[in-house]
């Protein structure tokens, strides 16, 4: 085929020949209107109610933290064998949630998965907010919060470095790096959309603010060229981070000697679990957002179905890891190891173990059915169950291994206190508050990128459509 002197290879599928990712005959301007409208229009009443609720919970979060700093970590249920309780469980849980965003933005970007464009922006925002929640927990869980800065390699009069052999220190760097890169990535992606909003701004003040953050974007070819290179660079940088962060987090456990922690399967197992839970969280948020803001044409069932497939895949990976752990415990012949795993499934924490297995391994299997993959209410419920399951996975790993380790004399049972619960619920409050503020003030879907996957984005769209209508 030759169009206007430019040869188009027949192997390349034209954008407009694909199943459209965005439905409802959207045009460039309808996309801009739709998404900018959410930010610029009247504030939704439901939004106010939701923010009121979530910010109350966030207030409870900070209040609980204040009491924690005042009294000490004794207000939690942690005890002598179980030194890490819900705070670390929450940390790992939130870091896990924070995986999907960057995965969607970076890895799917590199693999040219165009469907990512409808969800990547808020997935990235979700990542940031999840990592904010995640970073709070290891910070507040230390006994002496006022000297937590000892963990950073700051020059000091004692000439003391932190201990580079400690996985907790690796966490500091890994999660810190991840947060920094995710923030840059997210912000970089926002620039063209911020410029769009700037150009549409009606008040001078709004224009000024947006102008500052849009960094003088004018959409020139040169800018796009630089921009896309920067985006690719950040994507390339984020890709290993997606894998490294949770691998490093898993090293907190894997590098310890405690049976149930001391296992080499943890890095891939944790990464799979993180993607699993992260996608589930994106799905939960996407389903609510598309409903509330009527974005069904932009975030289509097709998008959601693709996500269910990833959830099913990673769910099976997690299930495989569970099975292999049992196998290795038995095959190693190590009494401590075997006991730990039998104890997980049939000991005092069996209830948590079976919640984990049901939610993570059994329930996602429902996605084999197309009907369920395309049923929004069912996938909404499953996405929540997956996150409950993944929270319990971290609980089972952290608590059950510590509660029953080498010396039976030290075994004890861990039960959370009201403060453990208030901090977990409060962290959800903070997370959703940040998220609600984000969808109110920033375009929750990447306007520029979604336009890029519209059929109109094909450079030859007009010729081809014209030719086709002539052929007919």
């Amino acid at each position: 085929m030759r169009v206007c002197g430019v040869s188009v290879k027949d192997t390349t599928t034209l954008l407009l020949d694909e199943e459209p990712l965005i439905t409802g005959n959207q045009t460039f301007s309808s996309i801009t209107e739709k998404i900018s409208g959410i930010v610029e229009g009247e504030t939704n009443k439901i939004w106010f109610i939701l923010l009121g609720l979530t910010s109350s919970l966030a207030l409870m979060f900070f209040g609980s933290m204040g009491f924690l700093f005042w009294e000490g970590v004794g207000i939690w249920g942690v005890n002598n064998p179980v030194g890490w309780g819900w705070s670390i469980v929450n940390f790992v849980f939130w870091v896990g949630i924070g995986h999907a965003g960057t995965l969607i933005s970076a890895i799917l970007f590199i693999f040219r998965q165009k469907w990512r464009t409808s969800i990547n922006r808020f997935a990235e925002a979700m990542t940031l907010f999840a990592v904010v929640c995640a970073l709070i927990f290891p910070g507040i869980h230390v006994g002496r919060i006022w000297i937590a800065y000892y963990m950073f390699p700051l020059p000091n009069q004692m000439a003391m470095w932190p201990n580079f052999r400690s996985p907790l220190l690796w966490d500091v760097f890994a999660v810190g790096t991840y947060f920094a890169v995710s923030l840059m990535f997210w912000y970089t992606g926002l620039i063209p959309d911020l410029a769009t909003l700037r150009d549409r701004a009606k008040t001078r003040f709004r224009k000024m603010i947006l102008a500052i953050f849009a960094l003088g974007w004018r959409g020139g070819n040169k800018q796009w060229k630089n921009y896309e290179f920067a985006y690719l660079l950040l994507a390339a940088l984020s890709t290993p981070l997606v894998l490294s962060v949770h691998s490093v987090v898993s090293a907190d456990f894997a590098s310890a000697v405690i049976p149930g922690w001391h296992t080499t399967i943890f890095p891939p197992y944790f990464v799979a679990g993180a993607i699993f839970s992260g996608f589930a969280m994106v799905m939960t948020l996407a389903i609510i957002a598309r409903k509330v803001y009527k974005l069904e044409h932009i975030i289509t069932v097709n998008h959601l179905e693709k996500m269910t497939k990833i959830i099913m895949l990673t769910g099976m990976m997690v299930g495989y890891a569970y099975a292999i752990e049992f196998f290795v415990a038995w095959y190693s012949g190590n009494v401590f190891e075997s006991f730990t795993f039998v104890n997980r499934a049939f000991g005092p924490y069996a209830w948590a173990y079976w919640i984990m297995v049901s939610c993570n391994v059994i329930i996602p299997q429902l996605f084999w059915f197309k009907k369920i993959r395309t049923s929004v209410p069912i996938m909404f419920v499953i996405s929540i169950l997956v996150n409950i399951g993944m929270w319990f996975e971290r609980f089972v790993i952290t608590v059950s291994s510590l509660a029953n380790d080498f010396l039976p004399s030290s075994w004890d049972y861990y039960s959370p206190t009201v403060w453990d619960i208030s901090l977990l619920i409060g962290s959800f409050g903070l997370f959703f508050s940040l998220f609600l503020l984000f969808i109110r003030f920033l375009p929750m879907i990447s306007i520029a990128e979604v336009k890029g996957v519209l059929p109109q984005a094909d450079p030859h769209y007009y010729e081809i459509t014209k030719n086709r209508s002539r052929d007919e």
Partner: protein
Amino acid sequence: MKISTDNGVKYWRSLDQLAETPEFKKILDNEFPENPPGIAGGALSRRKFLALMGASIAFAGLAGCQRPVEKIVPYVKAPENITPGNSLFYASAMPFGLSAYGIVVESRVGRPTKIEGNINHRLTKGKSGALIQASILNLYDPDRSGALRNKAQEASWSEFVSFYQELQKTFIESQGRGLAILSSSFASPTLFRLYEEFTAAFPEAQWAVYEPVSDENIYDGIKAISGQNIYPVYDYSKADIVVSLDSDFLYAESDEISAVRGFAEARSLKTENDTMNRLYVVENMYSTTGAMSDHRLRLPSSHVAPFALEIAKELRNQGLEIPIPNVRLDGFDRDAHQKWIQAIAKDLKKHKGKSLIVAGKRQPPYLHALAAVMNHGLGNTNNSVRYVSLKDALPPSLSSLNRLVESIDNGKIQTLIIMDGNPVYNALVDMDFAAKLAKVKNTVHFSSHVDETSRQTTWHIPAAHYLESWGDVRSNDGVRSVVQPLIEPLFNGVMRAQLLNLIVTGKDENAHDIVRKTWKSIFPELDFEKKWRKTLNSGVCEENLYESEEVGFNSENLGNLSKSLNIENLSKDALEITFAADASVFDGRYANNGWLQETPDPISKLAWDNPALISLNTAKELGLKNEDMVSLTCRGRSLELPVWIMPGQADNTIAVSLGYGRTSAGRVGNNVGFNAYLLRQTSAKDFAHGAAVKATGKRYKLANTQNHGSMEGRALVREAPLTEYQSHPHFAAEMVEHPPLESLWKEHPYDEGNQWGMTIDLNACTGCNACMIACQSENNIPIVGKEQVSKGREMSWIRLDRYFSGDLQNPEMVYQPVTCVHCEMAPCEQVCPVAATVHDEEGLNVMVYNRCIGTRYCANNCPYKVRRFNFFNFTKDYPHVFQMAQNPDVSVRSRGVMEKCTFCTQRINQAKVKAKKEGRELADSEILTACQQSCPADAIRFGNMLDKNSNVSKSKMNNRNYAMLGELNLKPRITYLAKIRNPNPDLADTKSQI
């Protein structure tokens, strides 16, 4: 775009051609660059790439808090003879019942901080026990009474003196009619002198002696057959066979320290060729002695005496001369225990003269008499047992209290002076002592606290602690010591001798002079000063030791004694109840001692409570679970308390411990546990049948320091019978199979200087808790309270793990002291993000408190779970006086800091400094850790592992040596010596019987 005109009129043919020109290319490149500026040329250096990615966002700083400011108190007037930082040591003695423990007290800048045993004292020989160690905290008890009280109003000592002097005039006239004294028992030359003066001055007065928990049955039994006031003193090191008849001689009986020492000596094994003693225990409730036994038979308390009688008969049948009257004790099923009786009798006969039969203080006088006769017949008298006169001592006598109560009822008593004791709380409940007290016009109570009794008396006089007093004592085995004060009375306490002297003479004299007056009759006048000073210095009077008495037994009286025995059939509806002194608070006098309250019971591992103990079968029959509240009824009286299932308890019996449920003990002891004295009555004093329990349906939370009693098949405590040890001497080290322990890197060699190490001999350890309190006292370990203990947050650096093995109904029990093992490859050190726990060059795993931020990662990664975290600021609310009990050489840890055993690093450094100053090498055993120093069994050895001649090196050469969890390749510096039991082959098949 500008197109250059250099091409003149040369027409371009196509746009393509024009696009080839460099100008156009340049313009094009500028607008549509292939690469962003700065990376032109395509080659992206690593440095450039990283620089581009280098931007990062600063973390928000976390809110900082101020560390609490410590208050310091400077000297106003410095005490004499003090070099700040150096301790002074004074010998003294701790009176306890009819005995006394010789001690050495460490004094820091004028205040006593730590108690050790006195090496010169033949009872303690430098060792101590939990109660001795903890008694220092009683000195600093903020709830001690600080003033005299008259009718609940504060009064002064001089007021009391003039009040009494007035009163005394009338008594002198009436020869003491209407005057009565109720004292606790004592063994003290001075107090006894004053007692004799009292009875001489006031022949009409009454003197009653009451102890809720005492050896009265022993005195009575021995007196009945010997006619003498004598007391048996045992030497366990000379006994190859020990039969304990309900006697917890390693913990709860008098003189337990020398008993543990002697027993451990007779049990010690250097090689597999050594011999060891054998211990049979017949008892109702599991005891630490039962845990050490080679054979343990659980029998209800009332069945112990007939069991002993059957052994005596068996011995007589085997031809030994044991003159026992032919008594039949009905109700005991001999045939069920035939095998045991024969085996024990055979073993005793085989070891004639080298055996020992001991009976417990709860057992009736009959059994003590019988045991004495049996020991005599076995030729043990003057070998493993000798009898010492009860000189200078006032033994307890329940009948004297009964007489007193009767006199009060008859209105014969106008003035009652109660010296020590707390009868309103702990007298037998059917005496209704509080009501009796109300009938007396003048009542005076001398005690350290305004307790239950003080609240009922017209006068209360605060008693000085023994560390604040002048006095003297005599130990059970006949050693006299002077008690010297270490500090001025903190709470205006009055010394015992001072008060008694006032009562007798009407004169208010100095206790120091009173005591010296007594001792002037002991030492010849010529060298009195010299000998007095020598006694004060060494802590013991080396002259006129009371040695053994010649005894002869008239066993005819056994028949009379047996009449009081009552053997009934027991069932779940008619249980036998046993009253025992509590392992922590004794008879209740230590109820306000937080260290003791928090030390778990050696058997049940419960702290801060006293549930009723029942056996597994009985619990099943009664449908009870742990922590169920029951209503326990005994002869018309009842008490609600929780139950705890104790494997090894005899079926159809229930055991309660005394000393809890205090209402006026102080802030620590008030309303802790349940007052079992409310069930204790004349007809049910030590044990009685006819008790019944009924579940109330309520539950009660108990604080347990060890929830799991099974080792789960792990080789933690390694144990073997003697025969296996002999055939397979290295069994302990070979018990766990593991791959070769290799390292991925070159490890630190630790081959210079001192390399500290420790061994703990599980064959010697009796689980007596002495090390736990010694450590708590030495290392300022906080008390956390019942709620925190039940959450699993007790702070003990050393703990005693207790495991059961074998049969569920009658398991064997083992103890294992566990503290930081100072791994050379410590997993805690690797995971600490701030390097707050590191290794020093002497192999110590050190905690840097100032650096610790409290991630608790180290505790998680510790396979031995010995690290303890300050979940709260446990020391914040310490009363000022309590702070004085702290060791100034050890930091008091604040909230959020991890802590653990340091191998008493302060002691190591003190010794090192001393050796350096003296220009010499450290000697072996110059450094004793606190746990090691207190251990009466000498189970703990500590020292330099590089010195091949050190005690610890020799101990590590023992073939029983093994490293717990050694397969983890952590190279622990503490290793254990495996436990060996010496079962009788004749009883091989009874291991799991009954």
